[in-house]
Structure formats: structure tokens, C-alpha cells
């Protein structure tokens, strides 16, 4: 069977709460990262608070409808980002949230490699039938990456975000299992 946790540039990990909290604090201080990744206002949390939150999260043990992964580079084992899945088990589909907190890894294919690993996991291990995501209209780099991975633009909510005095849209994208499978077959030829 194919290797699930290693891509071309990155690998999937689960980090110790202290390690994760250190990185998260560092990433939060980059407000451009936060404004690309999130809609909530930028805020700064302490390492302690993040660690406690991380520990509380796995109190109940692994849940079948929530997956949370961190990502390290293959060559230097550097912790650069994360992705998470929110699954609807009945309808067999999920929402994905993904981010690279270390800005020197933007625009170099790491995000695309991460998303490809994520989709492979979703479609061959979780065996879901669809993945959805949302992104800011002003996040052109992410849009290109997601399109490369096979996501299609499905709609937009107009001018629902207000930042720096400007209103922008949120874009909604999705990929179906059949589409992903077709892409795989295409790549294998």
C-alpha cells in the first residue's frame, strides 16, 4: 500500500504540545499569515494557553470526525505548518483547513505537497467522497495551489470580510472523489 504520511517535500506528524505551542506562538506573531489563514481578528495567545488548549483537545482521545495533523519538511525536519479535517460521517465528506506558518516556505510547492498528502489520506484512508474548503479572495497563492490539487471553485460569498477598510469575498471550493481518482489515473499515464 502507498505510504500515507510522506509526500515529496513534507511528512505528516503529531507533535508534543510544548513543541506545537512554541511554533504556534511564533506563527501567530506573523499577522499576514493569520490574515491569510483566518477570518477571526488577529490575536496573540501565550505559549502556556496554546499548550493547555492542545492538551485539552486530546483528552477525549482520537475522534472519528476530527483529524489534526502537523507537517514537517523532509530534508530538515522543520515544523512548518498544519492541516485539519472536520468530517461529517453521515454524508461522508469533510472540510479542510490548511496553513504554513513559516513564511519562507510560501510559494515553493510545500502547500501543494501538503494538500496532495491530505487528499490522498482523505480519499484512500478515510474513504470520504468530497472535500470542501474556504479561502479569502485575496489569497491568490492558495487559490492557485488548490486548483493545482484539483479543487474547483464552487461559489463565493460576496464582501463578507472587512479588513483594512476593504470588503472582500470568501471563495468556496470543492473536490469530489471521482475527480481526484481521475486525476490520479491521469498522472499515472
Amino acid at each position: 500500500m502507498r505510504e500515507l504520511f510522506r509526500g515529496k517535500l513534507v511528512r505528516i506528524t503529531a507533535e508534543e504540545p510544548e513543541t506545537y505551542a512554541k511554533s504556534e506562538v511564533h506563527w501567530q506573531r506573523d499577522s499576514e499569515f493569520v490574515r491569510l489563514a483566518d477570518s477571526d481578528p488577529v490575536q496573540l495567545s501565550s505559549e502556556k494557553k496554546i499548550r493547555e488548549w492542545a492538551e485539552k483537545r486530546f483528552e477525549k482521545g482520537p475522534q472519528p470526525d476530527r483529524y489534526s495533523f502537523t507537517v514537517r519538511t523532509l530534508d530538515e525536519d522543520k515544523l512548518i505548518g498544519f492541516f485539519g479535517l472536520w468530517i461529517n460521517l453521515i454524508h461522508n465528506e469533510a472540510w479542510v483547513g490548511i496553513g504554513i506558518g513559516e513564511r519562507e516556505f510560501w510559494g515553493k510547492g510545500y502547500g501543494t505537497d501538503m494538500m496532495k498528502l491530505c487528499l490522498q489520506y482523505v480519499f484512500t484512508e478515510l474513504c470520504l467522497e468530497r472535500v470542501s474548503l474556504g479561502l479569502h479572495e485575496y489569497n491568490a497563492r492558495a487559490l492557485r495551489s488548490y486548483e493545482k490539487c484539483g479543487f474547483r471553485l464552487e461559489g463565493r460569498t460576496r464582501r463578507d470580510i472587512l479588513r483594512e477598510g476593504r470588503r472582500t469575498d470568501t471563495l468556496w471550493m470543492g473536490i469530489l472523489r471521482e475527480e481526484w481518482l481521475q486525476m490520479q489515473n491521469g498522472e499515472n499515464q
Partner: protein
Amino acid sequence: MNDIFTGKLVRLSAFDPEEMSKAFTRWNLNSEYGRLLNSSAHRMQSAKSTAKWMEKEAEEMSPAGYYFSIRTLAEDKLIGELGLDVVNWPGRDAFVGLGIGETEYWSKGYGTDVMNVLLRFAFAEINLRRVTLTVFEYNPRAIRSYEKAGFRHEGHLRNYLNREGRRWNEIYMGILREEWMELNNHAPSAVLGA
């Protein structure tokens, strides 16, 4: 769309710990019932203690468990319990457990009716791909009922149970979504049709 929880003889209704704990306690006074349903020895518990246990289970319930009480359509009488436990989400396979506590409803088609309602819920509402069950070799009534509902034999654990001085097999049965659809002459849209 007709009600997915209603069959020809029974309907599935919500599992209320207070009501069910009283019923459980009464049904389990009948040791035959316990020995048909459970492999472990019965530990006689009060209704109060059973209710507490049920509430705790309900609290901790993951997205994987569904519990129902079974009521007759004719008199809305509570006659049994039904549980569906999704053991593997990617495979979309669940274990079903069914017990009719009111013995006057045995051998009258109630079990098969419950199972038909359950299978429709499993395949058409929560989109499972298969349903599994175990049944004891000494329970031919249940085995026949499940066969009628479309379950196929998948083997047995040899000499799994030890009761009344001899050993008995635990039989596994399973039904795939494709098999159920064929049995019901259903195309996917027909299941959801009016």
C-alpha cells in the same frame, strides 16, 4: 418521503434511559431472554443503577452509536431495544443488536420487521455499506428472522459459548448494501422517493 422509522408492525422510537432502564430490568428477570441476547452472564441490576449506566453511555456516546426503543404500531407498546454501532467508518460497517423483551411478540414477524426498518435506516439514511451481527447457534428463531431480512452467513466462532454444560458456536452474519438494494428492488432514487 415516508417515515423511515416506521415498519409494518413496529416503529423505532427514541431511547429514554428512565423508561428503558425499567423495561430492561423487567425483561432481564427472564433468564432465557438474557441468554439469547448476551454472551456474558447476567448481573442483576436495579432499574436505578441501569438508568445511571445508560445515561453515562449516552453522554460518552461517540458519533458512532445509535440506540432505539421498539414500539408496536397497534398499541404503541414498548417491546424491545435496538442498537447500531458503527465499528469502522471508512468501511462503513456497523454491528446491530436487537432484543425483543416482551416474549409474547416472539415468532410473530416482529423481529424481521424491526430488522427491515433498521436496514433501511442504515443504508438509506446513514449511508452504511454493510451491517453485521452475531447470533448464537441455539437461537434458531433469530437466525431465521435475520435470514429472512437478507443477512448471509459469514462463518462462526467455534465453541465460543459455554452454557448448561456444553459449548455452542457464535454465528456471524452480514448484509451488504448492494444485496439489500437488490432484495428491495431498489435503485438509489427509489429509496428516497415518495
